[in-house]
């Protein structure tokens, strides 16, 4: 882009980039460039520079103006160095010579560290949050202060454990600030002993608490025990406030360690520690009243904004000390959470972790995918998502993909997945058939196909499933972008598999039983790939609502596309269920086919009806939006530079490129929506269908609270929209002042239509 010298008189013409590429040799003649540079410097004014042809936007943006507070991270605020801060008494040990004040200020430091930790988890750098604590930066200094020392040690060990989980999970593509620990003393000797140090301190304070209770009840005081601080009236309150804080740290550290154990062996213990953490957090919250009342002086400002329970500013923190450690970028605004918000944050994090620990390790791909999507609904942060990713990877995917019983399948992860997810005929698990020639041929076809993709035996589809799970664990913004691109991969796999199978088996229609079985397996595999593809497309589209990527004017095309994808998804799901039913039936063939069973077979499965409810809502909204656009000018506001066509192309580019679904285009969208009018809308109410289906299918999901709740929401939307449609049909054409709004008050992606008269 930089196709000419940029900054007028200050630029040097010529070809510096080409010159730079000539290597120096024995014959190179060196000349002193100083006079040239001096001349150039004399000619330069403020804000000018000498640059080559390759000076681009990135280079320009990388320039920082020194001493500009908005840009210069290295600008000195209070202290030049940690040592200078310490010399100036910014982080005294002990914090106060008065033991009561010392305890109180120690609690402030603990509280502020909790707030810093939450701010770090929420996306700020470790250097400017937790490691803004001078005590933590020079941990050895705190050794004489057992309480502070034990707390700082476990904080450091916890940070390290969290960084390691997030780094291992690799779900932090856009959140890489999180794991930046450059220049921080994160690796300290002896942190493996942090729990025993903490336990010892906890034990002492427990005894101090018992002792002070004994004193108050006039029992005998153990002679060897010093009280925690000098004011007997405050002893119990301080002991309690400290114990819950220390115990929270201990249990939180245990949670992290337990969740790391292989094969999910620590999940049950992790849940116990999570419960303990939550109890301690409650006690921490309760301690605030005591901490605020134990001194006469009160702090200024709203207590809810403070980063400590007492409301006092903590001693020993300076967020600017480390700002130079961040990459050469302008300083980021740091907003440390208030203490109250930090406690709330940890409650949410622990609940999210509890959800992960409660997963039953069911090695069924479908249930795993549903679990991950459900988990994402509560918008868990990076730390929780990383734990899920690790668990998925270590405990579930390995089981799902690698631990198999059949010999042939056992070696091929792709088959393993299909075997479970695609409900392959029972016969395929039979060892006899695996030895059969045509079956081995099937294995060869797949192996050839995989090898022809140049990725070695079986790793490509394996990767597809692994990648899908990995993507589903990332934040919604990144997830949507990745899913969109990922669709192409699934489509390519489908096309290539289809081609490979057709080449091999295309002409064996009058085949033996074994070949028939092979054909069935192909069809299952293809069907399974298709179902996954439409499921991903569906998720891609609905994430757009969560991320607020669609404007009201675009809802019509979005719901139309959603409808088109859902139709295909329902079709494939139905086929898959029919196949598995067929398989299951064959398995129990010897049992008599009762007329009841036959009746059940002809019914549409609840999972498909569930999707049909979605379909009706999507179709209803499409038609209502189309009618509004066609009849009310306000809903059809053309833009000066492009048309609806260009918006369609942009929104669905990735889907269109992967032919998802086939034969869906802008013209088919136009065709189905151009003729929508209030009069045509009045003829059929899709929302009534949706409402009916939702009502009917609820009983089939009585054991599935999540889907039951979803159906209730769908029913509400359908009911509201059905009424709104009637009103619009009756008044729409007559009343130009009619205002129609689309709100997501009942459901995250199916809008509730609100009609108002302006």
């Amino acid at each position, binding site marked *: *882009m930089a196709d000419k010298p940029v900054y007028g008189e200050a630029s040097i013409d010529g070809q510096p980039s080409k010159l730079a590429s000539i290597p120096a040799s024995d014959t190179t003649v060196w000349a002193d460039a100083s006079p040239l540079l001096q001349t150039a410097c004399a000619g330069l004014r403020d804000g000018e520079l000498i640059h080559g042809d390759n*000076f681009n936007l990135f280079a320009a943006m990388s320039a920082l*103006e020194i001493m500009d507070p*908005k*840009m210069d991270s290295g600008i000195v605020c209070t202290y030049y160095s940690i040592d200078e801060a310490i010399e100036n008494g910014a982080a005294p040990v002990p914090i106060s010579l008065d033991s009561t004040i010392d305890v109180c200020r120690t609690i402030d430091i603990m509280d502020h560290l909790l707030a810093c930790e939450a701010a770090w988890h929420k*996306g700020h750098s470790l250097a400017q949050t937790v490691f803004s604590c001078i005590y933590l930066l020079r941990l050895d200094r705190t050794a004489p202060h057992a309480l502070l020392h034990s707390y700082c040690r476990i904080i450091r060990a916890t940070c390290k454990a969290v960084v390691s989980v997030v780094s291992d999970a690799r779900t932090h593509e*856009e959140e890489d600030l999180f794991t930046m620990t450059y220049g921080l003393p994160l690796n300290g000797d002896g942190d493996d002993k942090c729990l025993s140090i903490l336990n010892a301190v906890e034990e002492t304070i427990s005894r101090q608490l018992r002792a002070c209770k004994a004193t108050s009840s006039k029992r005998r005081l153990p002679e060897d025990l010093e009280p925690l601080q000098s004011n007997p009236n405050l002893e119990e309150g301080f002991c309690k406030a400290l114990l819950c804080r220390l115990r929270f740290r201990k249990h939180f550290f245990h949670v992290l360690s337990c969740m790391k154990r292989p094969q999910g062996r620590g999940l049950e213990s992790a849940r116990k520690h999570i419960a303990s953490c939550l109890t301690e957090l409650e006690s921490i919250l309760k301690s605030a009243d005591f901490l605020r009342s134990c001194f006469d002086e009160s702090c200024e400002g709203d207590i809810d904004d403070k980063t400590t329970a007492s409301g006092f500013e903590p001693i020993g923190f300076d967020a600017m000390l480390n700002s130079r450690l961040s990459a050469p970028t302008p300083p980021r605004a740091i907003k440390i959470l208030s203490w109250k918000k930090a406690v709330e944050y940890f409650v949410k994090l622990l609940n999210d972790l509890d959800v992960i620990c409660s997963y039953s390790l069911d090695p069924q791909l479908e249930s795993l995918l549903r679990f991950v999507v459900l988990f994402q609904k509560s918008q868990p942060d990076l730390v929780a998502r990383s734990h899920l990713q690790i668990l998925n990877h270590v405990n579930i995917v390995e089981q799902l993909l690698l631990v198999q019983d059949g010999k042939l399948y056992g070696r091929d992860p792709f088959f393993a997945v299909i075997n479970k997810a695609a409900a392959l005929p029972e016969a395929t698990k039979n060892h006899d058939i695996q030895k059969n020639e045509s079956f081995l041929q099937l294995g060869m076809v797949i192996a050839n196909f995989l090898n022809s993709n140049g990725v070695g035996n079986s790793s490509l589809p394996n990767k597809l499933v692994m990648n899908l799970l990995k993507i589903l664990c990332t934040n919604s913004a990144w997830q949507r972008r990745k899913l969109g691109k990922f669709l192409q991969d699934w489509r390519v796999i489908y096309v290539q598999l289809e081609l490979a199978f057709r080449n091999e088996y295309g002409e064996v229609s009058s085949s033996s039983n074994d070949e028939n079985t092979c054909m069935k397996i192909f069809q299952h595999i293809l069907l399974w790939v298709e179902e996954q593809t439409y499921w991903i497309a569906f998720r891609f589209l609905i994430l757009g609502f969560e991320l607020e990527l669609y404007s009201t*004017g675009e809802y019509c095309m979005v719901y139309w596309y959603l409808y088109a994808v859902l139709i295909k998804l329902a079709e494939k799901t139905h086929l898959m269920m029919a196949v598995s039913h067929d398989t299951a039936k064959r398995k129990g063939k010897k049992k008599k086919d009762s007329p009841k069973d036959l009746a059940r077979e002809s019914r549409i499965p609840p999972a498909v009806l569930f999707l049909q409810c979605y379909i009706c809502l999507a179709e209803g909204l499409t038609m209502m939006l189309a009618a509004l656009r066609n009849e009310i000018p306000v809903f059809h506001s053309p833009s000066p*530079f492009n048309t609806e066509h*260009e918006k369609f192309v942009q929104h669905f580019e990735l889907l269109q490129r992967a032919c998802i679904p086939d034969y869906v285009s802008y013209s088919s969208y136009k065709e189905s929506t151009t003729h929508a009018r209030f009069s045509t809308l009045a003829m059929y109410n899709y929302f009534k269908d949706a409402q009916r289906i939702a009502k009917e299918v609820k009983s089939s999901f009585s054991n599935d609270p999540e889907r039951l709740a979803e159906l209730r929401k769908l029913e509400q939307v359908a009911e509201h929209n059905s009424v709104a449609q009637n009103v619009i049909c009756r008044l729409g054409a007559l009343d130009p002042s009619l205002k129609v709004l689309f709100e997501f008050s009942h459901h995250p992606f199916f809008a509730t239509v609100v009609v108002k008269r302006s």
Partner: protein
Amino acid sequence: MEAKPEEKAEFEEAEIEYVSYGGEHHLPLIMNLVDQELSEPYSIFTYRYFVYLWPQLSFLAFHKGKCVGTVVCKMGEHRNTFRGYIAMLVVIKPYRGRGIATELVTRSIRMMMESGCEEVRLSHTFVLVTLEAEVTNKGALALYGRLGFIRAKRLFHYYLNGVDAFRLKLLFPPPRQVL
């Protein structure tokens, strides 16, 4: 984006004068406005990068000699598409809500369209205009929405202040449809 009523300036739309970037004397005006109103810091080299290479795409809005708004853009080839990019758009608070920003952007986009269409005829690529806006900046999002931009992506914690961004994109129709 909306200013409080007491901060509103009184003026007729016809009093606003729009000029294309005319040289170094305009640079401090642009820099002051952007520095005041946008959260991201830019060095003088960033400004110069844009205005020296694409002076025809940068515009300033004046009211009685006072610079009240500016737009800074670039364009070029990017992944086989011809792309315009709106780097900075600012109108000072008292002058907002009166169409000045829309006018500034429209002028830049028209210039891009003219150059872009020529490129498309030569190379059969697409013409696209992109930009990023804070997800919280309702005024800007509405403005670009009216001009036909779609929200193509959400970029997590894009800005230094920790706010997410939307990447907005405007695709032009094929040249023969352009009026």
